[in-house]
């Protein structure tokens, strides 16, 4: 997959500095992504296959290829991007299939997780690892979910207001209207190291004994 250091060609650069190769036909993209990814997604259902092609357009060849998933690592702002072959039906705010997972570094206050789960069941928190992820069918909806999850976590919105905002912004996006919440993360993403190790409850002497 061509990146900006490919002397033979160049795509457009989006606001995050990522080179987007939407000028290339899918066949060319797949060839650049390597035979391995190509071979895997050829047998996938159409929706995850198309999501894989879109993600290759955006982030280049995946860093890891498995029969059930493609994985990209450290693609700003994401720590990890995963396209899954197996989809998860989700009806909020409209029926769709969750298949694109995107994770950021994020310190999770555990006491806010009831509200986060009520807001959107496809936002996933990993406290020890220090990651917050969203799984939807489009990157724009993952931006929206994480931006609003952050608003819920910091107390800027309650659950009902966040669900209303998601509904309105997702509807507007489907009608072709842009919104900062669907275009990029609207809060500073902490560097890696947001994990919460917790505390030992068995003391060292007990462990040695």
């Amino acid at each position, binding site marked *: 997959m061509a990146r900006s250091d490919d002397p033979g060609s160049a795509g457009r650069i989006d606001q995050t500095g990522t080179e987007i190769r939407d000028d290339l036909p899918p066949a060319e993209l797949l060839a650049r992504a390597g035979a391995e990814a190509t071979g895997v997604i050829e047998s996938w259902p159409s929706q995850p296959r198309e999501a894989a092609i879109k993600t290759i357009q955006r982030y280049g060849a995946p860093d*890891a290829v498995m029969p059930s998933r493609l994985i990209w690592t450290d693609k700003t702002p994401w720590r990890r991007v995963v396209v899954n072959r197996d989809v998860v039906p989700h*009806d909020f705010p409209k029926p769709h299939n*969750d298949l694109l997972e995107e994770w950021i570094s994020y310190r999770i206050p555990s006491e806010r997780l009831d509200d986060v*789960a009520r807001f959107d069941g496809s936002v996933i928190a990993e406290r020890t690892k220090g990651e917050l992820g969203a*799984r939807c069918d489009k990157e724009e909806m993952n931006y929206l979910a994480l931006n609003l999850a952050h608003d819920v976590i910091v107390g800027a919105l309650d659950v009902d207001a966040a669900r209303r905002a998601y509904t309105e912004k997702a509807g507007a996006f489907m009608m*072709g209207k842009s919104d900062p919440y669907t275009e990029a993360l609207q809060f500073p993403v902490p560097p890696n190291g947001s994990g919460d190790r917790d*505390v030992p409850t068995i003391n060292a002497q007990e462990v040695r004994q």
Partner: protein
Amino acid sequence: MTVATITEQTVEELTSTWPTTSRESAQTVMRSYGPPDEACEELLLWVGHGPWKHTILWRDEIPHDFPTPHHDVLQQFIDYRVPPDAYAPLAWFDGSVVVERTKGELSARCEGEEMNFLAINLSHDLATGKVDADEARRQYTEIAKAFQAGHPSPYTQGLQFDVQHGGTADRDEITIPETILHKLGEKLGITE
């Protein structure tokens, strides 16, 4: 890379450069469940072995100090629907327990399967109101301490409740009516 036919030997080669805990854990899991069903440089994946829906062995180790300092590498999943008010207590009980509401899955990530059994069993006790988060942490500490001293508990040897297979996913509800989407799409000439 992907591994077309995965054998214990190919896993040994694949994990030869992995950190110690994840490399050794790969060997331990293979002794129970055989070679993984899928593998790449970052993880090994077993599907449907033992009581687990799937098992992931991660290359990258996550430091975790509860109840003693160790590295989380082995994540194991079951189908489970967590009540809406139990997400925060579960995260407080053990930050390595992960809940996925839409998918209807509960997982634990620790160094070995026994501690995952323990975390999931106590998560079930917490989700069903048998214990609160503080009591779950106390019990985790005591049972883990006994396990390290060579006294395993039923809670470290297997899941102590009936695990559902399917029917735990939560699709949530539609908040954008299809009729409105359809009408707007037609008006704007947009096909969704």
